[in-house]
């Protein structure tokens, strides 16, 4: 088995708080792994330890069969990183950003030129090559960050929230490019708050909270294992009356959030028939998705 990342019993404590608390995680070559979790779940700290930017208190980290942080420099020469916040050089043009970043890897400007043309095409920035970074849109900046992470032809790319803050079109383009990378055999690890992003891109998804991995499986399996197949969201003035009187909800798991009740159920028919008979109530029926798994595992409380 070709493991790109192998993490065992990883721990990190800042002061009193255990930010990462016994994480085990392995990533195979060519897969796209998604790391999901509320703010403060320990995702970014886990990634930092994986990159050798933070020393773990306990546990083992191996990336590309190199011990981390001991061999972090040799490892970082072979991987790419797309940070959460763009840290492109604002004084430089698109092409100068790529050249400059390549120099950090010891790649000379001359030998990178043909690679840069490929990267510009990949990021759909060929026409913007001489544009100053500050003048680019959010989506273009993100694509440039992604292209920059590929200057060294990495075996593994780590992306921290690659599409946060982008409009749907810009996000679609990033997704398309990430799929192409996976198709070419590049291993990806990404964190995200967007469940549909994880569902579409990731072979496997790890849900993290309070420094632990709560579940780790392909998205469909997670949904099948953790929640009922159907969700009916019910709201309207008759909600309370219906909940008290209903017989069809005995089989369902019901979560109440403000004015809406979420009914999780295997067989949705009886509930829908009952709801159709009432005029003081509205509802929406859908298939369960990763967000339902996420909320079930991490709770609905707001994290700030």
């Amino acid at each position, binding site marked *: 088995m070709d493991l790109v990342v192998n993490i065992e019993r990883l721990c990190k404590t800042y002061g009193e708080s255990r930010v990462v608390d016994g994480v085990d995680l392995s990533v195979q070559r060519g897969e796209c792994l998604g790391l999901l979790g509320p703010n403060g779940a320990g995702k970014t700290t886990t990634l930092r330890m994986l*990159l050798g*930017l*933070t020393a773990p208190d306990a546990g083992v980290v191996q990336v590309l069969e190199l011990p981390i942080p001991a061999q972090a420099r*040799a490892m970082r*020469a072979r991987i790419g990183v797309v940070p959460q916040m763009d840290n492109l050089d604002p004084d*430089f043009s698109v092409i100068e950003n790529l050249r400059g970043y390549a120099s950090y*890897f010891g790649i*000379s400007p001359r030998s990178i030129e043909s690679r840069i043309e490929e990267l510009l095409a990949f990021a759909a920035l060929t026409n913007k090559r001489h544009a100053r970074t500050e003048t680019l849109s959010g989506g273009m900046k993100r694509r440039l960050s992604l292209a920059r992470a590929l200057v060294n032809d990495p075996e593994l790319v780590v992306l921290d929230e690659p599409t946060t803050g982008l409009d749907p079109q810009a996000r679609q383009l990033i997704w398309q490019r990430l799929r192409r990378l996976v198709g070419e055999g590049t291993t990806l690890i990404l964190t995200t708050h967007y469940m549909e992003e994880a569902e579409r891109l990731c072979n496997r998804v790890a849900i993290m909270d309070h420094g632990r991995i709560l579940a780790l499986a392909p998205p469909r399996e997670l949904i099948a294992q953790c929640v009922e197949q159907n969700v009916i969201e019910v709201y309207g003035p008759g909600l309370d009356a219906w909940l008290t009187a209903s017989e069809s909800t005995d089989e369902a798991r019901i979560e109440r959030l403000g004015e809406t009740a979420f009914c999780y159920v295997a067989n949705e028919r009886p509930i829908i028939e009952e709801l159709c008979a009432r005029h003081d109530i509205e509802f929406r029926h859908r298939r369960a998705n990763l967000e339902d798994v996420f909320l079930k595992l991490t709770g609905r409380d707001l994290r700030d």
Partner: protein
Amino acid sequence: MRLTDGVRWLPVWWRNFRVWRKLLGAALLGNIGEPLLYLIALGYGLGAFVGQVDGLDYVTFLASGIVCSSAMNTASFEGMYSAYTRMEVQQTWISMLTAPLGIADVVVGEAMWAATKSLISAVAIYIVAAALGAVSGWASLWVLPIAFLVGLCFGAWALVITALSHSYDTFLYYFTLILTPMLLLSGVFFPLDAMPPAVGYGAALFPLSHAIALVRPLMTGGELGPVWLHLTVVGVYAAVALVIAVRLLNRRLMT
């Protein structure tokens, strides 16, 4: 091409150099225009009243001091305001650290860049001083590598302050409490002979006064004192600051 351990700081230096080249006008004006104004205005304006100092025309006396003080100021600004911007605002250092560069590469690259800017400003002042007839002999060219060393020393200390700072405001304390007293009491504008002896002893602790002890005789053709002592003091200040800056930034950025 693979970067070997000794020159891994070079891309950091090169990155700053390319930005500087883009913004050349403003950079030159700030780092060279101001010290030249001091040199000419004080050299001739004040010089007319002062006459000779230590057997030299005042403008000649002052030129060697301004080379050193400008090296100090240039490197200090670069190591604080500019470096802090790269660390916090632009996150440039983090982008380097996610590539195969380490904190030591960043610190050495930044300090070498600060020293380079000091060298550039020293060259400009040297040329003007030569045109004013305030420079004597080829040996005076040695002041340029010394200005580089001074820049390395103050650039490295500026990085220490940057590593401890959480806003630009902190830098004002360092300027007012450390650099300005050093500027006034190291013999840039006047010799320390007329001051109480305690000031002279205190000034012996300042790297800037050791730099001036070298640069002034070299530029004016005077008698050189203990060269290695002066060089060692400035060099040790630089080395200690580099080590501290690496430690502090490791703690700040790599935990």
